């Protein structure tokens, strides 16, 4: 007999798997984006189930609210004729599908046979619920992980500059060839 948490997990898992498959099989990327949105939402639900509300909110704000919108935006900007969107699975796709499936099975087997740390950390679910996952994450993020946090901001800055440089239309005066 499954209890309420497990029932919710099974629902989220089923939706995630089904819509992941939908995402990679759509011909039209707009439908793929919509399916991926459903996946992200259910992953967020899963995070709430696993006591990580802050990560769930982050998932929706950043993944669904920013990254996926960017995909849609680029899709609109490209204005690819609808017929040209399709085409295209690789001609040897069954081989690759098999490779991917094998990878998944291997990971599952590997994890099933692994032993995980038995020494629990300082944040059992009750404590997290008590102080709130936001505060718990903040405490660790700004003490133990302060240096990686700063590095990540640099990564974002580089990505920002890179995106601007790549998409800017250079004029010859700015050193571009024939305005590209």
């Amino acid at each position: 007999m499954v209890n309420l948490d497990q029932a919710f997990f099974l629902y989220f898992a089923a939706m995630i798997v089904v819509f992941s498959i939908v995402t990679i099989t759509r011909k039209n990327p707009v439908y793929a984006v919509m399916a991926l949105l459903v996946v992200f939402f259910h992953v967020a639900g899963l995070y709430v189930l696993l006591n990580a509300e802050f990560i769930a909110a982050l998932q929706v704000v950043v993944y669904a609210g920013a990254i996926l919108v960017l995909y849609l935006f680029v899709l609109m900007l490209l204005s690819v004729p609808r017929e040209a969107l399709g085409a295209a699975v690789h001609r040897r796709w069954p081989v690759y599908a098999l490779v991917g499936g094998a990878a998944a099975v291997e990971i599952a087997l590997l994890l099933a046979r692994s032993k995980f740390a038995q020494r629990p950390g300082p944040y059992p679910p009750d404590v997290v619920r008590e102080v709130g996952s936001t505060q718990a994450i903040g405490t660790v993020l700004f003490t133990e992980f302060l240096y990686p946090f700063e590095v990540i901001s640099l990564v974002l800055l580089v990505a920002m500059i890179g995106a601007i440089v790549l998409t800017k239309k250079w004029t010859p005066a700015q050193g571009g060839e024939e305005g590209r």
Partner: protein
Amino acid sequence: MTELIQPIFQTAAWVAIHAFVPAFIVMNAVLIAGAFLTYVERKVIGHIQLRPGPNRVGPLGLLQPLADGIKLLTKEDIIPAQADRFVFVIAPFFSLVPVIMAYAVIPWGEPTTIMGLLPWLRAFDGWGYIPPAWNPFPLVPEKATLVVSNLNIGVLYILAMSGLSAYGIILAGWGSNSKYALLGGLRSAAQVISYEIAMGLAIVGTLMLAGSLSLVDIVRAQESSFWYILAQPLGFLIFFISGIAETNRAPFDLPEAESEIVAGFHTEYSGMRFAFFFMAEYGAMVIISAMASILYLGGWLPLQLPIPSSVPAIGSALAGADGAVRAVNGALMAIPPIVWMLSKIGFFLFVYIWLRATFPRLRYDQLMHLGWKVMLPLGLANIFVTGLVILVKG
């Protein structure tokens, strides 16, 4: 048999009473209020422009929203031949559903017995007809907390939901397969994304003062100190201006600039599908107004004047007025919290409409300039200064 089903029944009744009933009430109240807001808007703008506004249907034209609703419901449902049917049909839902979901975390007032209604319901036994084991009424809480769900990440949740509003707009623009709709959709999405950042940064100042992401806790924090508009006037301005831009309202209503791109992303929509976009826009206006009241004007807290003798600067000069101020404070206290909350929201909605009747529309480059080069740096500066003050004082 009974032993098996009875606990399931109890759980279902508990979920119904504590989740579905509040959600149902809030959702319907919001949709009806949204419809009524269209009437208020037309009436207010009418008076500003020295016209009577709608006055034909019902007394003072009060039944106008009903007439509009009937008209929209009975209109022919047109789907353009070249449109992408699925995307075209689903886009209005993408735009309305996140707005309604956002209402789940808005607190409307103190826990209340609703004038004794809840204790009466708790004691209700169905006049003896319902067997005690199957009676769901004792599950009714003693006092109703006037919020559907007090999430401890409430502010982030609202930001997440408002971020999703871009989908309905882009998908509607793309699905219509019309150049005006697509241009309107792109403009609008760019605008929503740009101003969301400024809005998020403006809220951070308040969060630093309150030390919590829960909207209920933010109001409680203001109860024990002061309304945050006093500490965050700049944050408030950035938040409200970004909020207007975020909801695509005048003077930032470029996505639906009639004179340039017909009706923007909903050019091809008619009937109930159009009404969905309309309701989403008005629902989002109420959300921004409610957020502004909660974050900066103390939510459901009544206005309290400072007692003159406790203010060092003017203390002795006005000491005689203490009694009068106390009496006024007492009278303000007597007004129920929910009335305070609703009137604060009403005030911001009026400002929304007032702005629409007053300001001309911005040009697109001005809009982007304002968002990225004015609001964003000011928001960052606001966080920096707030942090500095907290560091020095505390």
